[in-house]
């Protein structure tokens, strides 16, 4: 069984439990073991505006914790995935920076070695586990459903940091949805930001961005939104009502993690996928799926 250290990051581990529960339920079905480790901190990406060296140091120590166990890393949050990948890129190529990181990490008796690879849930499903293996486990296809996909800015850009998907027209989540039996039409707003990174400084504007994208998805008649970022889910699902009020629209868009959709297609009980925590109207999806499955 392939084993990965789960790097949970702040947002998933302190409030977006639906993501963590669903991936911990779904991945073992696909022959992947998820290992929880002690000692992690923030990846540093949310603090990049304050101090970029802080980001580098925090990411280096988190990578070092996984390397100590000899495990590759699953970072389900695109911000964490970017911070860890960028840090790895810098430390693997710049001996001076590596030396600086080494002296900071020595305080906690940690050492960056550069041995662990870093994955996100999308490339894990699409490239490592593979679409065929996912397809084999589908018992309740998500037939008749059409999802707007949303990847999160940090997963698709900047491509020079080795993002797992294409920056302008990402397609891996679309292909995953396809083997689950669901559709995913293109929409012009697909590469747009959820507004989340602006929340600490300009909350109103942040929610306006969220509302605008949700409204576009709703107006184009999608069954719901499929995503793979805890920050984006916090905006599109947890804050959907507020976002609707901000843009003056009545929003009713079911928002689900891709891991929850994979679980549903595998016939897993919604209670084991953390679906009670989605605040958007996901019952519509669950109901529709019941009918399709029956």
């Amino acid at each position, binding site marked *: 069984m392939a084993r990965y250290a789960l790097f949970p990051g702040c947002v998933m581990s302190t*409030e977006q439990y639906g993501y963590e529960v669903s991936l911990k339920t779904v991945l073992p079905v696909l022959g992947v073991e998820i290992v929880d480790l002690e000692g992690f901190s923030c990846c540093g990406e949310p603090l990049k505006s304050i101090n970029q060296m802080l980001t580098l140091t925090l990411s280096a120590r988190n990578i070092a914790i996984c390397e100590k166990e000899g495990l590759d890393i699953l970072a389900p949050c695109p911000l964490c995935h970017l911070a860890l990948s960028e840090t790895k890129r810098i430390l693997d190529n710049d001996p001076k920076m590596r030396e600086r990181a080494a002296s900071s990490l020595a305080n*906690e008796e940690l050492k960056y070695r550069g041995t662990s690879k870093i994955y996100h849930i999308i490339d894990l499903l699409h490239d490592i586990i593979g679409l065929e293996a996912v397809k084999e486990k589908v018992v309740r296809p998500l037939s008749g459903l059409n999802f707007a996909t949303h990847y999160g800015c940090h997963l698709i*850009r900047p491509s020079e940091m080795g993002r797992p998907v294409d920056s302008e027209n990402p397609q891996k989540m679309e292909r995953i949805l396809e083997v689950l039996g669901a559709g995913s039409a293109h929409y012009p707003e697909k590469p747009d930001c959820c507004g989340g990174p602006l929340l600490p400084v300009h909350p109103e504007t942040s929610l306006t961005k969220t509302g605008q994208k949700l409204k576009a998805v709703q107006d184009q008649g999608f069954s719901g939104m499929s995503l793979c970022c805890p920050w984006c889910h916090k905006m599109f699902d947890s804050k959907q009502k507020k976002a609707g009020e901000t843009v003056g629209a009545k929003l009713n868009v079911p928002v689900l993690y891709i891991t929850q959709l994979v679980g549903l297609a595998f016939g897993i009980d919604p209670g084991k996928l953390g679906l*009670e*925590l989605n605040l958007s109207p996901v019952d519509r999806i669950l109901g529709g799926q019941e009918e399709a499955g029956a």
Partner: protein
Amino acid sequence: MSVIDLNSMAEAQAADRQEINERLQRLREEVSDHCYQCGKCTSGCEAHKLLELEPHRIVALLKKGLIDELVNSDIIWTCMSCFKCKERCPQKVAPVNILFALKNLAVASGKQIPGDFTAMLQSAMEKGLIQDVQQVNTRAGETRTREQMGLSPCSKPEDPEKFQMTIMTVAMEKV
């Protein structure tokens, strides 16, 4: 070193400032050679329509050496770090990186850190994470903890004092 004093952290940090200034000078040399003000960055900027951020003008001002003016402006804090400007620039200039460096310099120069960034930073330095573990709501209006969701306790730095030393040796020597 229990409670972190953010005021003392905001004291002028000479070494930090020098390093960020050098970073900005390098970026300035790069953009002077490459940016021809096509405006592609601004046309795709997520913060342009709503907050009037114009990345191509940030680049132009940096080219002119108006670093103090930029550091003192609120506009640098409107960037959503969506990376579209960096991705789409035909000349491989990265306005988003210039904005990160400018914000870093503002902080190292003792400028007020805006909005909730202060709380996130404080929490990260004290507990390792940018926010506390929360009790969340279900659609039916009930509440759930991590434990109730069957999840193991949140992973955190095992020795907070050593952890603080780790991050302070890089960033906040004065604290």
